[in-house]
């Protein structure tokens, strides 16, 4: 798994490492320069000491020589003292001094580097003046040429030492930074962990999503919290709706089962004659039919909602309504209700044929069932601006205003006892709504108590 913390730490450490590397290079170059200057000064100092050791040779030509008895110089250094004519006045005992011979003539004054065998030397060629016999007529001035070299080993070693110090310090710094960063990130990312914890506490039995104060105050987390809240609210609503539906469905089914069971038990409670059994079985058949209808409708609703938006067929709503009204006429006639259809010509909408049938039949049956004897149910179909409008109007008692917002809810009945008497399942209008909404249409209801109810369905037409 990818870890943000690890990435952040690695990123910071890499940045720090490149900084440290750059700094170390600059520091080492600078160190080298400084050390070389110090080395040069040391070289000059030692050359001056050597000049001090140039003494009167006490010979007739009043020459000078190098008196090494008082001289304290590192044994590894090499030097040569020459007269201006190039005569060697003295040289170090170090074997490498031979390499200096001949350099006096070829080299100018100043510093240079030579290599003898495997040893690098830095060499200073300088001139000095030695005054001897100062007491006699002001002394004699004896110029000499000094060539002094010291191995650069020490210089290299010091630079390496310095570089090692820089590298070690950088490594230590990196380690400390890494640790501190890990700790700090652990603390800084705590709102994220708290958010995860509060999110993990959300369940179907407890929808409470309470991010901690810490998480709420973190700007980066705000969009996450906001979208989580929205998501949870949506989920909760859907879940509650589903739960309500399941509860209602269970209630309806239980009621049906209770009825069936009691009818059966009543029938077997005592001896009955054939007519009584016949009547009882007839009632049972009706009960089972009702249960069948309920199950069918629940399945229809589940199917319509589950299928979602599907490329539908093209249906002539006008024809559907006309043929349906024709089929319903005997049933309406039994209730002394007439059905009037105002739907001329074709009205093509994009709905599944079976759904169009269910929609129109549910609306018409509802209207017929709620109509008093002698009343008329009117169905009109018009098409305008790309929308088909179907109006189903009855002359029933109407629906109380308080019930209007709920009538498309599942299992909602304006008056349970009346609906049960008429055999309603409380699902018809919910199914209608699901069908209409699936086809991107709208369904609305208007009602006037005592005068009747208008159901208005609008569906997009197919050109």
């Amino acid at each position, binding site marked *: 798994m990818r870890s943000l913390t690890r990435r952040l730490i690695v990123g910071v450490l890499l940045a720090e490492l490149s900084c440290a590397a750059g700094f170390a290079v600059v520091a080492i170059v600078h160190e080298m320069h400084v050390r070389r200057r110090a080395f040069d000064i040391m070289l000059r100092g030692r050359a001056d000491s050597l000049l001090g050791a140039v003494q009167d040779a006490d010979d007739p030509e009043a020459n000078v020589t190098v008196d090494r008895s008082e001289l304290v110089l590192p044994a590894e250094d090499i030097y040569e003292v020459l007269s201006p004519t190039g005569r060697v006045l003295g040289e170090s005992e170090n074997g490498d001094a031979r390499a200096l011979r001949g350099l006096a003539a070829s080299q100018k004054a100043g510093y240079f580097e030579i290599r003898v065998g495997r040893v690098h030397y830095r060499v200073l060629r300088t001139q000095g003046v030695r005054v001897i016999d100062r007491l006699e007529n002001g002394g004699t001035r004896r110029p000499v040429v000094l060539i002094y070299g010291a191995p650069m080993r020490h210089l290299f070693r010091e630079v390496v030492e310095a570089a090692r110090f820089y590298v070690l310090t950088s490594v230590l710094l990196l380690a400390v930074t890494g640790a501190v960063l890990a700790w700090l990130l652990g603390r800084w990312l705590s709102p994220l962990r708290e958010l995860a914890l509060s999110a993990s506490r959300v369940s179907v039995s407890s929808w409470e999503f309470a991010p901690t104060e810490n998480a709420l105050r973190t700007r980066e987390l705000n969009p996450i919290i906001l979208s989580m809240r929205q998501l949870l609210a949506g989920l909760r609503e859907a879940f509650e709706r589903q739960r309500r539906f399941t509860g209602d469905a*269970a209630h309806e089914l239980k*009621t049906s089962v209770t009825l069936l069971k*009691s009818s059966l038990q009543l029938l077997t*409670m005592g001896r009955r004659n054939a007519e009584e059994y016949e009547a009882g079985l007839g009632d049972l058949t009706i009960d089972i039919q009702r249960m069948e209808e309920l199950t069918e409708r629940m399945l229809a609703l589940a199917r319509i909602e589950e299928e979602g938006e599907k490329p539908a067929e093209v249906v002539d709503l006008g024809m559907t309504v006309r043929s349906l009204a024709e089929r319903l006429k005997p049933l309406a006639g039994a209730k002394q209700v007439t059905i009037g259809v105002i739907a001329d010509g074709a009205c093509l909408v994009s709905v599944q044929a079976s759904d169009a049938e269910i929609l129109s039949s549910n609306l018409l049956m509802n209207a017929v069932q709620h109509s008093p004897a002698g009343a008329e149910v009117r169905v009109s179909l018009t098409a305008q601006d790309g929308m088909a409008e179907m109006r189903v109007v009855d002359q029933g008692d109407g629906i109380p205003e308080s019930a209007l917002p709920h009538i498309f809810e599942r299992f909602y009945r304006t008056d*349970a006892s009346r609906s049960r*008497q008429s055999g309603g399942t409380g699902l018809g209008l919910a199914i209608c709504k699901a069908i209409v909404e699936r086809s991107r249409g709208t369904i609305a209801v208007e009602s006037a108590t005592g005068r009747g109810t208008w159901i208005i369905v609008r569906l997009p037409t197919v050109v």
Partner: protein
Amino acid sequence: MRVLIIEDEIRLAANIAAALRQGAGVAVDCSHNGREGLALTEAEHYDLLLLDLMLPALDGLSIVRRVRARGDRTPILVLTARDERSQVVTLLNAGADDYLTKPFDLGELIARVKALIRRGKGAADSLLTVGRLSMNAVEQTVRCGGQLIDLSPTEYRILEYLMFRPRAIVSKRELLEHLYDYTWEHHSNVIEAHVSNLRKRLRTAGEEATVETVRGRGYRLEAPEPKL
């Protein structure tokens, strides 16, 4: 005994009513609407209220609360389709005496109805005795000193009502109200005829206990102290 059923599922209410009439020998009235049901309880004719929890107009819980608020101690049995514990607890706390979860067994319903009526009358046992007279409310039989007395359903119901309150005067009106539902056409002389028949049967069986007529006030089940 008279029971009121408040249940919006009309066919179910009819089934229960038939079962109670046949199985428990009680008079039954039905109401299919909470508000109407509550209005019916106000007459206090009932020995038991049987209600559905989900009712139009007024739900079962509200009916229980209102009945109890009125100080009415009639036993209440609630039918519920939802066996949610909290709902049951609320119901019982509100004053319901018992509940049955749908789908229930009619036999169980009858047994519970009988038990609740009995308890409502202050009897814990299904065996009632007055003197040598003993009545088994489960079998719906009456015996005198071990010998079975054959009674018609109405005679049995009159005797049962009186046996719950031995030696107390029960008015003719009270008997009418508690033994017949609204579907009966009741005339007070119907009761008189049944009481007269009951007396005859008890006497024939050699029973010493008898239903006395207290002039202008009602009837009383009177039994001599059992001989030791």
